[in-house]
């Protein structure tokens, strides 16, 4: 089996050893959950419950009509205490439903799951409806609604399970591969069935080689595979951003997702390990996405761990409960997500969301900040950029407010992976500049469109 990869990229220090060896720990009791109503990429939804209402775990608490919406479920059984704006992991205040756990009235179940559904006996529409009803979004980062992704309008030749986990520090996917590979494989199989793909690929980075036998075993044992479904494991070079959707596709198939296009344009569907597990659970157990696994690690975290906790768990509650020990003295930066693409937050009193793959508690030493120096035009970013969009030139174009040029260079193709900023010897805020640039460019385009009209 050859090791594949893509052009560009970097290899930041992994630092996965901290939490690599700790098995996934399930958090069951939390003092409260703060469930953000809008956790997905798409149209906003509204709460369906009122303050004081009793909700069961798995009960739908917010939803709305519309293709790009995903419902949200109560992750614990309890009473709705408040519905108010709270700081979310994207650094803005958003409407959250605060639920305090409470035992259900006598004789009633604390759970309100759906009935299991056999993915191989139902129609495609039923399957998609189930995925939506389970509130599944892409758990890798952006939170793209899974039912939309799994309803491609073009023929799909590959379903790719993204187990690259290229972000440093994060180990939850690795643990999942080691501990519940059968669930992952099951998820792949279900997705393959749903999108009618002939081949499934589980993409694993070289540094997680030790998980391959487990996964292989799970594949071999999977009844569907035995029945003839084709799933293989693809080893990939350890390199960031190997787990980027586009990079993954290029590494495995050699195809390039066209500019402005989606993976389905090149016949691929890419799903994160967590998403696949959630899909498997949604069908097999009828369990909506109310729990998620994530890694808590970082220099200021004394107990690096892989946890599975109800969606909406505040990290501060975990600390109070002693599940996670945080060194407040040395804590310098709180990041939800990985160090390359995660969001820095002002505190850790923030709920874990459906798309939170890790909570990074960086110490002061780790969280060094650099003053921006002038660009020395070394071209490191150009060599590292996985999308070949010449970050240095792009930054200059943006700085000189030449947005036409910036667009030509490929501003909108930037995947914000952070590679360029990582390698920059002058510590230029390249990614941030591109984010702002994208915003301005989109605004300009909108304005132009209005003027034309």
């Amino acid at each position, binding site marked *: 089996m050859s090791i594949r990869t893509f052009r560009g990229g970097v290899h930041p220090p992994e630092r996965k050893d901290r939490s690599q060896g700790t098995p996934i720990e399930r958090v069951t009791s939390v003092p409260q959950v703060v469930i953000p109503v809008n956790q997905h990429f798409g149209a906003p939804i509204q709460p369906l419950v009122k303050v004081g209402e009793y909700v069961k775990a798995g009960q739908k608490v917010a939803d709305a009509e519309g293709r790009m919406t995903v419902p949200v479920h109560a992750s614990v059984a309890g009473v709705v205490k408040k519905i*108010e*704006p709270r700081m979310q992991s*994207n*650094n*803005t*205040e958003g409407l959250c439903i605060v639920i305090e756990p409470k035992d259900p009235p006598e004789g009633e179940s604390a759970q309100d799951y759906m009935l299991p559904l056999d993915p191989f006996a139902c129609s495609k529409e039923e399957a998609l409806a189930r995925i939506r009803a389970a509130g599944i979004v892409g758990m890798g980062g952006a939170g793209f609604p899974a039912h939309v992704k799994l309803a491609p309008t073009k023929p799909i030749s590959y379903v790719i399970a993204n187990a690259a986990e290229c972000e440093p520090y994060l180990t939850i996917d690795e643990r999942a591969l080691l501990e519940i590979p059968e669930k992952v494989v099951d998820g792949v199989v279900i997705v393959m069935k749903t999108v009618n793909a002939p081949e499934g690929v589980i993409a694993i980075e070289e540094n997680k080689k030790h998980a391959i036998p487990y996964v292989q075993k799970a594949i071999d044992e999977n009844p569907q595979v035995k029945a003839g479904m084709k799933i293989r494991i693809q080893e990939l070079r350890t390199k960031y951003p190997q787990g980027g959707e586009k990079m993954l596709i290029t590494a495995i198939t050699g195809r390039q997702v066209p500019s402005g296009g989606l993976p389905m344009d090149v016949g691929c569907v890419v799903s994160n390990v967590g998403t696949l597990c959630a899909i498997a659970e949604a069908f097999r157990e009828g369990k909506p996405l109310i729990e998620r696994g994530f890694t808590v690690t970082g220099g200021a975290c004394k107990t690096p761990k892989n946890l599975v906790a109800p969606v909406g768990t505040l990290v501060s509650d975990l600390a109070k409960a002693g599940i996670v020990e945080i060194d407040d003295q040395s804590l310098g930066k709180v990041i939800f997500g990985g160090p390359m693409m995660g969001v*820095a937050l*002002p505190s850790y009193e923030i709920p874990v969301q459906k798309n939170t793959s890790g909570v990074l508690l960086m110490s002061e030493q780790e969280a060094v*900040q650099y003053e*921006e120096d002038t660009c020395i035009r070394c071209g490191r970013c150009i060599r590292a950029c996985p999308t070949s969009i010449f970050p240095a030139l792009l930054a200059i174009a943006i700085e000189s407010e030449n947005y036409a040029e910036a667009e030509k260079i490929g501003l909108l193709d930037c995947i914000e992976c952070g590679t360029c900023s990582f390698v920059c010897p002058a510590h230029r*805020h390249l990614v*941030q*500049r591109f*984010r*702002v640039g994208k*915003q*301005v460019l989109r605004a300009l385009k909108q304005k132009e469109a209005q*003027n034309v009209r």
Partner: protein
Amino acid sequence: MIETILLTIGFSAVLAFFIGIALAFFSQKFKVERDPKIDEVRGALPGANCGACGFPGCDGYSEAVATGRAPTTKCSVGGSATAETLAKIMGIEGGAAEDRVAVLLCQGAVNKTVSKGQYSGIPTCRAAKLSTGSVKTCAWSCQGFGDCTKVCKFDALAMEEDGLPHVNYDNCTGCGLCVEECPQKILTLVPRTRVGSIVLCSNRSTVKASVIKTCKVGCIKCELCVKSCPEGAITMVNGIPVTDYAKCTSCGICVQKCPTKCYKMLETDVFGTKKEVPVMEEAQA
């Protein structure tokens, strides 16, 4: 010598005569019809080329006006005077543009607000907002990096020590570039002659406690202003009290009642330093 002179004169006379005729002839023949109004309009514009009118510079606007594609009131730099001149040129009744100035709807100076964290990154409001939501705990606060001051073409905005942009009302032309630039959208254009009360806060949080925690001069939604207004001119709109200037009598009760002093009088508190205080009677009438 005489010959040379005569020859020269003869030669140059013939040459010049022909050139003169040719020039006159060609200028007639190749004349491209151009509406003289364009030049006239262009002459009446201030020529700041600020683009606030939405056209490519003064030239673009003048052409649009002359061809009737644009109203005469779009030039906010020139204000009503220009609008009238343009209207005169175009021969239509002038709908005089309101002379407006920019007002910052936030008093969140550095010592009055709480910062969210130690921001490091590109020092512009837009970048800071994009990366941190808001550098201050109030999500509606002025970010304080002065994006607005950078776009001002009239030297009317300057960042001061309190970390807020201050408007120089003598220079402000109401072009609205800063209003557009502000990522928080907390700058607004107010008619220069307007009198009455205004709330200098944009916090739309419905959670009272959060406002108290985040800002010493924020609107805490106590609604004392609404309750105290004798004219009933103040209503809460989208979490912020709004004055109805048709009813406001500039009595100043709301300003006195406001516990966090975020209610201000336009004529004294906001335009305070301006010499020509607008005539009140006129506005009331």
